[in-house]
């Protein structure tokens, strides 16, 4: 089984540990991995801000980078959602690129989706003794429409007790450039999110989208609230020999 890694710009720059954890887990499952260096960014920052011409440039780079991949495994639900849902639409006036976009959208999976649906693995032998809560990113929930696979994987982690996050389907307030353009509203949203997280009394916050977690952890930190913030790949890499 061969797959290409789509690490995402956020992880490449800020959280390479997420990428490393993904590599560890996928290799343990017997997947042969490569990392096409042509990849940079899926284009969400410009896409969501209304700059679709600029987005097409970023998208073409991504499409080209993964042209020869059999499978693509992505480290972020929102980035994979962007590619699956929006790339074909972006190129509706360029039929050649539209075809290539469609081809990519059919072979790309978010990390937990890939494990459960393609590799048919739910238990990777992970061990993490902790009480944790899971933040589901809006784009992974409503664009990629994936809510089940992370839950199933986390259920199989030995020692991990999951507590449901109150108002879990509510946005964390990141929204890309929204967090800067509408910083005050973003603050109010993320503050409320941290309140709900603290209500769970969890010591660990888990998610499948580091952009959301970067937003939430930034506020937790500012509030002096000490929680371990982990990408699901990091959780699954825990306790299993690398």
């Amino acid at each position: 089984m061969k797959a290409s890694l789509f690490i995402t710009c956020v992880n490449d720059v800020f959280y390479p540990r997420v990428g490393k954890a993904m590599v560890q887990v996928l290799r343990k499952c017997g997947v042969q991995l490569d990392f096409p260096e042509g990849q940079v960014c899926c284009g969400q920052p410009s896409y969501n801000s209304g700059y679709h011409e600029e987005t097409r440039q970023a998208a073409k780079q991504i499409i080209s980078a993964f042209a020869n991949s059999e499978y693509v495994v992505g480290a972020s639900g929102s980035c994979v959602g962007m590619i699956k849902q929006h790339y074909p639409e972006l190129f509706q006036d360029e039929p050649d690129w539209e075809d290539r976009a469609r081809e990519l959208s059919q072979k790309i999976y978010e990390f937990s989706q890939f494990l459960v649906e393609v590799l048919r693995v739910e238990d990777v032998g992970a061990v993490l003794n902790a009480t944790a809560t899971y933040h589901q990113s809006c784009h992974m929930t409503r664009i990629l429409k994936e809510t089940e696979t992370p839950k199933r994987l986390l259920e199989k982690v030995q020692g991990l007790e999951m507590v449901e996050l109150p108002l879990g389907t509510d946005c964390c307030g990141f929204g890309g450039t929204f967090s800067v353009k509408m910083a005050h509203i973003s603050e109010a949203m993320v503050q409320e999110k941290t309140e709900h997280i603290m209500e769970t009394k969890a010591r660990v916050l888990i998610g499948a989208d580091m952009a959301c977690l970067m937003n939430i952890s930034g506020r937790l930190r500012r509030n002096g609230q000490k929680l371990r913030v982990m990408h699901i790949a990091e959780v699954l890499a825990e306790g299993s020999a690398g």
Partner: protein
Amino acid sequence: MAHEPAFQERVKKALQNENMKKALRNVQATFRNGRDRQVEIMGNWDEWVDRAKEIRAHVLENLDSYLDQFSTNVEKNGGKVFFAATGQEAIEYITNLAREKNCKTFVKSKSMVSEEIHLNHALEEMGIDVAETDLGEYIIQLAHEPPAHIVGPALHKTREEISELFSQLAGKKLSKDTPTLTRFVRKTLRPKFLNAEIGMTGCNFAVASTGSVVVVTNEGNADMSTISPKAHIVLMGMERIVPDWKSLDVCQTLLPRAATGQAMNVYTNVISGPKQAADIDGPEEWHVVILDNGRSNILGTKYREVLHCIRCGACLNYCPTYRQIGGQAYGFAYSGPIGAILACLLDDIKVWKDLPFACTLCGACTENCSVGIPLDQFILQLRVEAVQKGLTPWSERVAMKAFSTAASNPGLYELGLKIGRSVLRGRANQDGVIEKGPGPLAAWTQHKDFPLPAEQSFRDWWRKEGGNQ
């Protein structure tokens, strides 16, 4: 009506309002729970939504035909129809009628359209006592405030504030318990209902096949506004048509459940004409004012589905932005996701361009819309339009160009990363975290810590060791 800095001002004010914050959480919880419960009870909610979408799409596709049928039937029933292309025309018609009737008191049941065209102001300028009779509208009228929610305009007011407003009117101190406040309203408004020369309602649905207007309330104020006054005016947006009663079933099944979690409004009135010869109560004259005011502009565009809206308010109830800032911050008659879109489409996007950006594109609105409007997609489309019209800041356009250049050029991207990393390293505290960021980062770091880029990027690690394992 609003200009650029004003939105951020209103937002800041709203965010500082503790009462508003409490009220918004309470409102969203109540309405979400109510709606969710009804969705569960119905068991096949999506089928109803899909059918409503089909009906609304069909109506818009044939809007001229159905408006023709509706107005013909209204006239057959003894009513008068006025087609108002603009808000100004509607105001002229209504104020002329008020003048003709020597109107001193004008009772109003809730009408969002009347707020859209600023009707009250025009009537008040004539010295007419405009009495809002929906309890929430009455409260904000007394407070001189715009609505905070489409369905419950005064949900941000505490009972202390309401008691204060009523006490001022009563000329004595009223206690703040609900029954006392309710009794006061009933007592104060009843004479207005009975003595008003004209009563006006909005229209939830206009049934073309019988020339009927359906108006729903829980208080009975639409009924009160229409049985005593000699003239009844219906003010309706032209898209409020349903073809027949079967269609009304679908829409009226969804509306109360989606709006407040009620299975049915207390009063669902079907008005099909002025009083008939043998009737004792009811208006002698029935005027239906059908308003365009920019709706036809939307018809020929990709935003057409926005006219499906049945004004249930569900999008407000699930919106995380609305949750934090409330309806008044939007500055427009309609708020929440639907309001942000309507402001740009019915009015000028140049004026309202902040609204589509006050959104994280979380998609909760679209997910819960009673008639399947792709609200988040429309909001995104409006952003694209804003960019194309040159309404976004120059610095942002430059940044986006730089972004796309870097995103299509890995070498440049890595170079930028190296430079960025060294710049930011200097701004980090001893924990390796940025508390005061430069440039655009400052807005972030005002409220949150920002991580330093890792010493070694993933791709660098992969090149050096990861790839070889």
